[in-house]
């Protein structure tokens, strides 16, 4: 008894480390190409051509953008609080990446006689962890905007804080209805349930809609991009930032977008589940099955990312009072209604 907890599973640590490395690198790479995709999608929706000079079809454009950001002069304003000014973008980036820890990227793979779960940490409160880290995300913006010692930045930060806090409420309540159906907080468990039953979007269409709108707001994406409204606040919270610190802020926005796409796919669209395909019957496919699962999850995430962009280039920005009105007086009552109805249905029909 006394010796067991001193044993450290070295291969386990190694495999987790490799997995973390892969996931973080993949998120960064995907975020990088999301910036490219954003420009390309914007161009295509507006009958333009988009970046097509760097490499074939402009494939190397993100590299060129990144290089440009690195080579720019790094300006730290004289009257800023320097430590916080540097901390801001780092925090934004950190919280953006941290969320990826509990997402089940796929089923198990089998290497070196070990079953390796493609989830960094299958904690039983996965969705709460995501919520916790997501709400920390606002600190990156708030600290950065406050440290800039600039009125425009501060206004942007204020808007970000109030917006994210207001929409988190509706998001949480819309999820409670989902959690009542699944009866678990573990993301892995939810995916397994959806593999065997229906996708949650079928059971919770209203909940999904509210969740979708709230994730637009949480990611500061148009039509909720008030914190960085260019034409009102110059650049909002990143007005004073330059060089790669600005890059970090922009980058964290795209990582957030990717992660929330993955979270939405996992919660409502079956995660790595392939529709109309019985995974259990093809268990002999081994690693290929896991690969198909990852591809399915990525496909769903890409669809959501496209939706994010599609909406951005369609809908203009909300006014601040409209934003608050939508959050507090429409989404929260709707989410409450959804929760009550779901609870009532479960109580009445499935009470065992």
């Amino acid at each position, binding site marked *: 008894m006394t010796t067991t907890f001193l044993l450290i599973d070295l291969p386990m640590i190694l495999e987790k480390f490799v997995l973390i490395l892969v996931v973080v690198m993949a998120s960064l790479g995907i975020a990088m190409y999301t910036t490219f995709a954003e420009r390309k999608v914007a161009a295509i*929706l507006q*009958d*333009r*051509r988009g970046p097509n000079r760097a490499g074939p079809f402009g494939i190397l454009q993100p590299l060129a953008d990144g290089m440009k950001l690195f080579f720019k002069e790094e300006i730290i304003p004289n009257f800023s609080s320097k430590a916080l000014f540097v901390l801001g973008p780092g925090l934004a980036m950190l919280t953006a990446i941290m969320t990826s820890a509990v997402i089940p990227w796929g089923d198990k793979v089998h290497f070196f006689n070990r079953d390796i779960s493609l989830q960094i940490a299958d904690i039983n409160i996965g969705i709460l962890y995501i919520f916790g880290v997501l709400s920390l995300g606002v600190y990156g913006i708030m600290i950065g905007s406050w440290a800039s010692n600039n009125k425009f930045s501060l206004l942007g930060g204020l808007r970000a804080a109030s917006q994210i806090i207001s929409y988190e409420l509706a998001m949480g309540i819309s999820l409670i209805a989902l959690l009542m159906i699944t009866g678990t907080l573990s993301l892995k468990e939810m995916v397994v349930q959806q593999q065997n039953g229906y996708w949650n979007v079928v059971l919770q269409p209203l909940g999904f809609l509210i969740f979708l709108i709230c994730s637009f707001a949480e990611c500061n994406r148009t039509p909720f991009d008030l914190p960085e409204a260019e034409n009102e606040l110059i650049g909002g919270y990143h007005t004073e930032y330059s060089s790669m610190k600005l890059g970090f802020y922009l980058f964290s926005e795209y990582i957030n977008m990717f992660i929330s796409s993955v979270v939405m796919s996992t919660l409502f669209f079956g995660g790595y589940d392939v529709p109309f395909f019985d995974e259990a019957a093809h268990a002999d496919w081994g690693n290929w099955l896991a690969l198909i699962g990852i591809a399915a999850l990525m496909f769903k995430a890409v669809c959501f990312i496209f939706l994010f962009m599609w*909406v951005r280039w369609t809908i203009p920005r909300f006014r601040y009072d409209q934003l608050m009105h939508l959050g507090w007086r429409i989404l929260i009552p709707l989410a409450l209604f959804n929760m009550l109805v779901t609870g009532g249905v479960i109580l009445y029909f499935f009470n065992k």
Partner: protein
Amino acid sequence: MQALTNRVKEVDRKPLSFMEKMYLPAILKGMFITFSHIFKKKPTINYPEKKRPFSPVFRGMQILNRDEEGRENCTACGLCAVACPAEAITMEAAERQPGEEHLYREEKYAAKYEINMLRCIFCGLCEEACPKDAIYLSESFAPADYQRKQFVYNKSELLIPNPKEDPEAYKKALGNRAKPTTNA
């Protein structure tokens, strides 16, 4: 108030109906409009690889013409310089020496011929003034440069390639503007 024209449009100030208050149908409609633009033909062309033809009346950079045997047409009469409203043209005349008949068409030629492209307004009056078909406006334009003095174009930059030595370049520079001067 009485309308001054019949194009007046009354602003609709009715309160929003329930469907309009839902916003989502309108947003979906807008999204389908943007989506339909994916399949539209793009008006943009990939410029340096693909160029649009200039209009037939486009007036570009001047070219000093040669005749079919590669002799310069210009006799340095100065009519183009006189006609030029921007005073962009300068020239110096010289007499053709024996043995230079294959270079210049007539006894007098332009030893120096300069056009200041920063002054030129590409009006085409030099082309109209020229009695010898020696200058005309091509379909190209002066490229950008870093120094002002680079924009004073001299004979080496203005002269059309020699049709005897380089007939292809000559044809290309000639474009479909000027008729090649025949030995009349």
